[in-house]
């Protein structure tokens, strides 16, 4: 952002001040993530930068905490990772299917009571998690699903669907309905039309909603703390217990892996968003 030559000094100063503030905020946002990186390769047990690390001594770095994460004795991370992935995948599938179908109905102009139904469908996103946790726990306890994978998957479907509903309705708002009518006039039945015409066009929205649902489930800790038994431990639960008891470098190794995962998710979400905009003909 170059300033025009005629800018007065006080605006010049203000401009540099503004840039400085922005730089500070960006550092504030992103730096905490990078601090974990080097510390997870620490050869020592302490969570501070050792003298060796400051001098970039190769001996000060090691993979010992990663080894501990994978091979450590009585290690909870293997089971936790397995559970987390299983739960997140099923919760995502459930949210995507229920959410996409509902979004199709919602974006029809014939939909009755649109406002109140939309509010109901996205309510799990607005109600504070702790309250959702209590309510879902009451249901699961009554249905005998507490401390089961099924119960947690259902809970995460509840929390994940609003994201799918919102992203898919947004995609459908730019959707040209004459293509489905064209398909129908060419003799295609509604299911076939959906699979062959509508779905490919709204797919970016569906997938990005799915990514939201996946991340919601994968990161979720409040509800799962109410629902999970020992067998259903997930990565967030393990991190929560670990952070409460003692902060070990193994947690940082896990955290680094999670940051890598979220970077991958971010990249796919961005690519999808751009593709979706291109498909919908929004050029900026």
């Amino acid at each position, binding site marked *: 952002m170059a300033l025009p030559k005629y800018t007065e000094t006080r605006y010049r100063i203000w401009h540099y001040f503004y840039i400085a503030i922005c730089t500070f*905020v960006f550092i504030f946002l992103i730096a905490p993530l990078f601090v974990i990186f080097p510390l997870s390769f620490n050869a020592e047990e302490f969570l501070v930068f050792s003298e060796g690390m400051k001098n970039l001594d190769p001996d000060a770095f090691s993979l010992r905490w990663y080894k501990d994460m994978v091979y450590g004795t009585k290690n909870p991370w293997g089971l936790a990772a397995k559970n987390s992935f299983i739960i997140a995948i099923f919760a995502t599938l459930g949210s995507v299917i229920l959410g996409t179908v*509902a979004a199709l109905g919602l974006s029809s102009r014939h*939909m009755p009571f649109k406002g109140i139904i939309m509010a109901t*469908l996205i309510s799990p996103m607005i109600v504070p998690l*702790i309250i959702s946790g209590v309510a879902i726990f009451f249901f699961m306890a009554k249905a005998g699903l507490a401390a089961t994978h099924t119960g947690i998957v259902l809970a995460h479907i509840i929390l994940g669907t609003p994201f799918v509903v919102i*992203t898919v309705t947004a995609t459908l708002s730019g959707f040209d309905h004459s293509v489905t009518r064209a398909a129908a006039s060419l003799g295609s039945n509604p299911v076939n039309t959906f699979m062959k015409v509508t779905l490919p066009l709204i797919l970016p929205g569906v997938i990005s909603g799915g990514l939201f649902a996946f991340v919601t489930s994968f990161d979720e800790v409040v509800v799962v703390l109410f629902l999970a038994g020992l067998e259903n431990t997930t990565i967030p639960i393990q991190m929560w217990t670990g952070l409460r008891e003692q902060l070990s470098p193994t947690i940082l190794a896990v955290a680094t892996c999670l940051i890598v995962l979220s970077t991958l998710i971010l990249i796919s979400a961005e690519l999808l968003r751009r593709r979706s905009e291109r498909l919908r003909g929004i050029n900026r």
Partner: protein
Amino acid sequence: MSSETKQILTTDGIPLEISLKKAERKNKIKAFLLVAPLLLFLIITYIFPIGEMFTRSIDDKMITNMLPKTFKSMETWDGKELPSEEVFTSFLSDFKILVEKKEHGKLAQRLNKEKNGFNTITKKLFRQVKRNKIDETQSIKEQIMKVHKRWRNVEYWQAIKRTAPPYTSAKYLKAMDMYLNEDNKITQVSEDRRIHRILWLRTVEVAFFVTVFCFLMGYPIAHLLATLPMKYSNLLMICVLLPFWTSLLVRTASWMILLQQQGVVNDFFVLIGLVSDDNRPEMMYNKVGTYVAMTQILLPFMVLPLYSVMKTISPSLMRAGKSLGGTPFVAFWKVYFPLTIPGIGAGCLLVFILAIGYYITPALVGGASGTLISNQIAYHMKTTLDWSFASAMGLMLLGGVLVIYWLYNKLVGVDNIKLG
């Protein structure tokens, strides 16, 4: 001319109006059937249980289920003098059943909450019952009254009667540090026991300040992102989106490392000479930690709605303002800022609603002063198992959130929620 002749008919001879209505209804049903599975699922697993929280919170059935006969016979008691022989008899038979089920301890605990001193006298009565010391052929009233002098005190019987109503506002009053006293008047608990009001205030205070900090930090960078050329802003956007997609616990963990006494932030302060090495300030396990970590975690929720609003504001508006003689500050304040108000509303209310229900981060970095109302709800759900109290507090919190959400809807509209 009669009205029938005016009607336009379709080819099948049905009036067009009716035919259209039929098609319309069919479409309505079709659309509704698509939404129905999710709606039904949410109503059963989510909306209904929230309603159940309400019945739980006002319904203290525990005690009425424990002493059914006693309350039946107490119905005729005026509550002024000691109850009749009949009440004592039914109380004893209820109590014997409880002893058999080994639930007399629960009763003592519950009654003790109503009036101190029940623990001792219930235990004494339990011992008498266990040893079969109570002779049912004689006056039971006399025998119970002999067990302990408090059983002769009418106040204790009044306390039992007070626990009777199946619907009670007691849990809500408790959440506000109040209770119903002997004369059914709302009274405040003694000053040293008013913990909940502090928690409510602290929750609102933390949510408010986090929102303010997020706004102060989010506004400039959203503006920068919206005005920079696309290729730079896309790069900088990663700084906002990467934290947004990263696990909450990972971010909390990194703040725990940064803010500890030997941590990077303190190292930096020592390096620039702000504090001396042996006098490093405590930044974690207090409010500083809560504010810093929560601001960073919730900042993306402020930046994204602001950005999406600012992106739609044409830069020529600012130029027009300036060309009409406004200084850049005036042009900003009179032209640009009012246009961003929808974004500000969305961002602030989103952050406030998220912050008010926060629990994980304050619990980890906040120490004792980081306990918010959500922690208290979780505590009663998991540790004391007082679910009706947890429900009452949860619903009070939900009420607050709904009021805020209603405002949000009025000011900004629900449809304006944007995700990245």
